[in-house]
């Protein structure tokens, strides 16, 4: 038979539960959601995506956040964002573990949706970002020390990073061997950022800036 609910007499206990606990629960829930979505995170500014990632805005839509690329990465270089609009999307924290550029690109092969472009087949042509020396005064090599760790660790040594020697006027008899990044070759794998020996790396991967071409060739 019909079981009519008696809504007329709200007990003190129910009042407490529904009248006070519910808003409290809702506030707590909002705080939880806010923690996840409003925390400043990697979604702001440049995010180093796995090889073959399509342009940032479209990537965010195309990626279904399934994590298959991360599961395919043999070095666990690919991690998933845990906050913000990009939640669940893959990124590479190069300082922790950079991309080691597997020749067969298993991450790209794993991507179902085309967020990592299936046409990416050659690692040398990948453009995840471009390395930049962001603190020239901090860079030990530019200060004349024989460091150049970024250069020697670069998987595209002598192409993406070269050493440009010049006289060191401070000592008068030594060479400054300055690492120089060549953006037309740099794939943005982040091995240099990972290897930099300083506490805060002075070479980091930033957004790839399209090379502006003109006919001026000198």
């Amino acid at each position, binding site marked *: 038979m019909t079981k009519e609910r008696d809504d007329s007499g709200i007990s003190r206990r129910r009042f407490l539960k529904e009248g006070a606990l519910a808003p409290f629960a809702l506030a707590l829930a909002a705080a939880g959601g806010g923690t996840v979505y409003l925390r400043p995170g990697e979604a702001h500014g440049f995010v180093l995506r796995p090889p073959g990632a399509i342009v940032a805005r479209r990537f965010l839509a195309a990626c279904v956040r399934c994590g298959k690329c991360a599961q395919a990465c043999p070095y666990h270089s690919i991690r998933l964002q845990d906050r913000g609009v990009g939640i669940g999307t893959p990124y590479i924290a190069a300082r922790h573990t950079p991309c080691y550029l597997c020749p067969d690109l298993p991450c790209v092969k794993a991507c179902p949706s085309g967020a990592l472009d299936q046409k990416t087949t050659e690692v040398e042509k990948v453009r995840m970002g471009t390395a930049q020396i962001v603190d020239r005064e901090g860079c030990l090599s530019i200060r004349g020390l024989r460091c150049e760790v970024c250069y020697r660790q670069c998987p595209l*040594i002598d192409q993406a990073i070269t050493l440009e020697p010049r006289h060191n006027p401070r000592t008068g008899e030594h060479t400054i061997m300055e690492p120089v990044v060549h953006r037309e070759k740099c794939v943005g794998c982040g091995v240099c950022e990972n290897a930099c020996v300083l506490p805060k790396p002075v070479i980091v991967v930033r957004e790839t800036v399209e090379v502006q071409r003109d006919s001026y060739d000198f």
Partner: protein
Amino acid sequence: MGLSRRDFIKACAAAAAFAAAGVTTARPEWAEAAEDGITWGKAPCRYCGVGCSVLVGVKGGRIVSTKGDPAGPVNKGLNCIKGYFLSKALYGKDRLTTPLIRKGNRMVEASWDEALDLIAAQYKKAIAEHGPDSVALYGSGQWTIQEGYVASKLMKGGIGTNNLEPNARLCMASAVVAFMNTFGSDEPMGCYDDLDLGDTYVLWGANMAEAHPVLFSRLIDNKLKHPKVKLIDIATRRTRTTKMADEFIAIKPHGDLAALNAIIHVILRDKLYDEAFVAKHVSFKRGKENAPYGLKDKEAFNETPADVKNLTFEEYKALMKPYTPQWAQKVSGIPAAKIEELARVYGDKSRKVNSLWTMGVNQHSRGVWVNNLIYNLHLLTGKICKPGENPLSLTGQPSACGTAREVGTFAHRLPADMVVMNEAHRKKAAGIWGIPAEKIPAKVGLHTVEMFRAIDRGELKCVWIQCTNPFQSLPNLNRVRKAAQSRKAFIVVSDIYPTRSTELADVVLPSASWVEKEGVFGNTERRTQQWFKMVNAPGKAREDVWQLIEFAKRMGHGALFPYPEKGMHRAIFEEYRKFTLGTGKDLAPYGVYAKVRGLRWPVKANGTETRWRYTEADDEHVAKGEGIKFYKAPNNKVSVWFRPYEPPAEVPDRNYPFWFCTGRLLEHWHTGTMTGRVPELRRAVSQATVELHPEDAKRLGIRNRDQVRITSRRGSIVLTAEIGGRGTPERGSVFTTFFDEKKLVNEICIDAFDPLSKEPDFKKCAVKVQKA
């Protein structure tokens, strides 16, 4: 900012004033300046043989910073990345701080008395039962001069055995023998100034860019300043040095022996030699040939004066006839035309030619011969003992020269170029040591490889290893590790961290390192550099000198070391200095070294250093008007040796088709005991890799970062492949580094050695390469 002389005097003045006020700690003896509560003192870098000077910043009894010393003449304030993180090498979490004694499979903490009493008891027992030659001490080119000196006096003058070796046997022995048999005195005539002053540099199998970083920076600056400067890299592997060289000449492993002979052939054929120089300074000699490779235990080979035949120049020329460039092309892989070209480079009177080499030549089963042949080039063309024109053998350890070579901690050596086989030398040593001459045995002790083989054979009962890591660095490592594991000898290891050697020891002693003690190092260019103790060693760790002297007391040889507790290092050095005076290896009083950033011996009567030896222009031992005089050589004549081509000990074949070579890299030093504790250097390079030629890799289906198994007749190891990285070996060769304690790559290496220098060949053996 560097310390000016004025700042220095002020610092001294302040120090004296503090002392007068009754405060000694505020201004320690070593302090030269203070800022922000950090007190700075000078010391040479702890790592390689370049000998950079660093300033060590101390605060609260701890090293808080190091920096390149702007007043250091070698580095002028610069460092390589290892030197930048120097202080961290001392502060790894797992420093050894207390003596440990083996109880079965466990190492149990012990007091110094327990440990030293045990060691003394074991040594006494072995000596009583088997004689003094059943015990040994294995030291290091990283020992301070004082440590090496005390070790030598204890073993040779006290215990009465020449079973004393330094690990420098593994790196510099070939250079030593060649210096001795060519010039009659160890160590180079030139110095680092030659890197600034010359215009042609021929690198024989040396990767200076990584192994001698700051020197390479200096060499390249000369090239940048002077367009004429030419850098020729002759090597079996393309390296970072190659990248900055003007020319790379690929050479087959062991091909140097052929190429050098062919270059000499062309120099003689085309009369590119300096007739007058040769007539005045050179005698020609032929040594013992068909030499063995040391692969059999106790294989004896010596080149005694009776074995040496004197030749006339004409005889020598005739002997060199068959070594044509065409022949050498086949053996070395260098095109005949290129060999002719190299001969003309060496013969070009308008060029100041320098040869530079290190382990490629020394770790060679005919290493002495290759050294000899390089000297031949310089002696025939007269390009020697002149500023900017010299052969320079680069060293690998901070005091391979100062301690191993000058103090003479080899099984056949006594200080200052003397040898145990020579009665007069023994007498001189015994005189200074205050012991009867017969106490010092004339019989040469066991050289390094033979020493560890003797453990395996059960002939050596006790070995004390200090400041080195042989159970990672010896060739054919499986044999020696197994011998140690089966506890065939009582093994003591003094070190600052647990290593692959301490794990095999019966007693582990915690040592003080670098500025935790006072000491003196001697670098490649004869520069002697002193430093004071600046901080205390952690826990119960004590310096090696103290360990040896305490041991000596227990052995009944305490009277040999009557040094005062305060000023002990000065007293030891001053006693050692007596050996050097008047020998052309003269050292300055200790107090002088305390003030300066090193001096290059021979130090002149007026206290200044010598940059170029054997020339009246700089060397006090050569009278004005004499020009060049090789005053250490018999009849003042240096030897040009005829050294034929003989094949290597092991050659790739069908089963083991690849050459295998080991070497160094910039980020880590030797077996990584110190650099492996620096997180930043581990971040930079975390593991040993194996370099392959891209075509070989493709043929074997190996891609970058694949796991690769390398197998030789002696061992097998899996390494990560590195293709197209910092180094690329020539086709048919693979290369790896030996710093990684998790990868004992020396298990692969053959224990063949040069018959004269007994230095093993870490650069050549046959392996197979498979994808793992």
